[in-house]
């Protein structure tokens, strides 16, 4: 529906719901059960609550560096909701919404940002690769996941996320090209949040849209209002289905905005005006979705308040548990370098253990 008719060179953008929560393209409206709708909304809201509270903890000196994804909730939840549980996600590091939708326990997520590798030991069924810090590198893994799935006859699609900044890396190019050549079951989501730290999207590339980069690989590319949960879901669903059918990869540009700082180490006032941020607050993906749900009678202020309180409490409790989790045990740092410690590692481990024992550490 979308992919065949969309011309990324026309600088159009798929939108189904406007910023007031009105459905402007009813003919494109995806079929989603009320239950699923609520699941999406709640995940977005949950993500927002986590971000807000974590930023608070960070300011209180209780959390290490944290990368919020304020404003990008629809991009992430809308796309992840189009996947089956057995599908894969190769994330960058700003995909909290996708993690949550795929079932990642908050405790894990907190543990990771709290500086403990155990956080990335997710329940197996989550099927999201660990956070990948080297920009765009994870896209290559998605192609491999997809290749293996097809080879093994598994019904699995692999989705990769990358930022607008990440599109500049060679890995972006190679992954799309390889996926296209091999016609792999991949979906690539660019979260175009307009910034790579302080660097604006127009510095990253001169192409009118990021979606049109798909033309370089002979695959469909499409630009979507990333703050519109329905557009994100509908387009991604089509791309996922296409991938699953064996028709190859799709590039989706989710046009959105990073409403918060890059990370808690960043001060965005150095490079952008508050007024710019406010313009985007007006397009908030959660507000928009809530208006829609309320209009449909699926949600109300009371539910909102109750859910927020319950989740807020859950976040607080989870964080407090994680906060008490303490330091990484010595053996953990040695036990996962290889399946088995090498003799050299074993010797280093024993030496350090002996030293700790001697010093009473």
């Amino acid at each position, binding site marked *: 529906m979308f992919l065949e008719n969309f011309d990324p060179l026309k600088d159009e953008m798929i939108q189904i719901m406007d910023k007031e929560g009105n459905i402007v393209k009813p003919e494109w409206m995806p079929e989603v059960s009320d239950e699923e709708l609520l699941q999406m909304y709640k995940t977005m809201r949950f993500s927002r609550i986590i971000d807000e509270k974590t930023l608070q903890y960070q300011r209180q000196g209780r959390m290490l560096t944290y990368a919020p994804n304020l404003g990008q909730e629809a991009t992430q939840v809308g796309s992840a909701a189009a996947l089956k549980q057995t599908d894969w996600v190769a994330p960058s590091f700003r995909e909290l919404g996708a993690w949550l939708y795929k079932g990642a326990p908050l405790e894990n997520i907190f543990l990771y940002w709290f500086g403990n590798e155990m956080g990335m030991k997710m329940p197996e069924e989550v099927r999201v*690769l660990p956070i990948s810090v080297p920009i765009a590198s994870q896209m290559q*893994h998605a*192609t491999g996941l997809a290749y293996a799935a097809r080879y093994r006859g598994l019904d699995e699609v692999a989705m990769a996320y990358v930022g607008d900044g990440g599109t500049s890396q060679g890995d972006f190019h190679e992954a799309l090209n390889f996926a296209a050549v091999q016609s792999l079951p991949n979906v690539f989501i660019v979260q175009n949040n307009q910034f790579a730290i302080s660097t604006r999207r127009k510095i990253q590339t001169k192409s009118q849209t990021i979606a049109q980069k798909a033309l370089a690989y002979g695959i469909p590319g499409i630009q979507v209002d990333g703050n519109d949960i329905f557009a994100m879901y509908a387009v991604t669903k089509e791309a996922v289905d296409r991938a699953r059918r064996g028709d190859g990869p799709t590039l989706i540009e989710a046009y959105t905005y990073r409403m918060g700082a890059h990370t808690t180490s960043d001060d965005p006032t150095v490079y952008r005006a508050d007024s710019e941020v406010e313009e985007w607050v007006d397009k908030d993906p959660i507000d928009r979705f809530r208006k829609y749900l309320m209009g449909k009678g699926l949600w109300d202020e009371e539910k909102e308040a109750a859910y927020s309180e319950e989740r807020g409490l859950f976040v607080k409790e989870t964080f407090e548990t994680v906060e008490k989790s303490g330091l990484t045990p010595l053996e953990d740092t040695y036990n996962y*370098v290889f399946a088995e410690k090498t003799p050299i590692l074993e010797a280093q481990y024993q030496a350090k253990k002996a030293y700790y024992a001697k010093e009473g550490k």
Partner: protein
Amino acid sequence: MLVLNLVEAVTSALDVAMEKDKNVVVFGEDVGVEGGVFRATKGLQEKYGDQRVFDSILAESSIIGSGIGMAINGLKPVVEMQFSGFMFPGYNQIVTHAARMRNRSRGLYTVPMVIRMPYGGGVRALEHHSESLEVLFAHTAGLKVVVPSTPYDAKGLLLAAIADPDPVIFMEPKRIYRAFKQEVPEEYYTIPIGKAKVLKQGKDLSVVAWGAMIRETQKAIEILEKDGYSIELIDLRTISPFDKETIIQSVQKTGRFAVVHEAATSFGPGAELITSVNEGAFLYLEAPPKRIASVDTIVPLPKGEHHYVPDVDYIVSELKTVLEF
């Protein structure tokens, strides 16, 4: 028994591994239709089909990066870097992902992948076709680094590498790809990673080498033994994790130590071995340990290559200084 040269032994290992486990896949530049520029994958695509053996796009980061994804999702990729000097575009994927996925996910996701690469000089090749980059892998936690020196070892070590649950860098000394043949079992066998092999016992000096330098060192030792010296030669076989114990025991016996390698001298692999000998056998040392290595210049093009890599005469001359100290 087959009688194979080293590159044929590599092919044989791949064949046996693919026969044994349908999740072993092979890809890289030109490895499919052509069977690789050194023919290491010759005949495999015909036998196993173009889903299991395929030509990659010309992009090392894609080869390694997609290999990582495949390994996570149940395959055993054995990928080829056309020459070790061309692995650099894929180095980011090796260091930041292949080596770390197990640790990063605390064992949830692992990367049982083998990255094969012809390495080393002495074949009068173009620029970037002759490097010896052991250290770049061995200094990186999470990687194993294996170098065979004979056809027999090549097959057994490669099969061990493929069986290994973690990423293995498999460096093939292309200078001796076709230098000699050897009896090699037709069937599956492995040689343990991490174990050196004492090729020859000796009393006066312990020498460690690997890959193509084994042959040069053997010749040097033959010459020296005519003068009455008794020299122990150890084929390291695995550069990381290397077999410290075998080396230390040997030096404790002989009191002298030398290492011969093709990699550049400074911050090279020899420095690690000498330091380990210091740590494990310092009081046994009767002479300063010696490294006999390529110099710290850029690898010269063919007309200057002889100035770079140690040759037999040079090894003899250098070993003598240790023996006569």
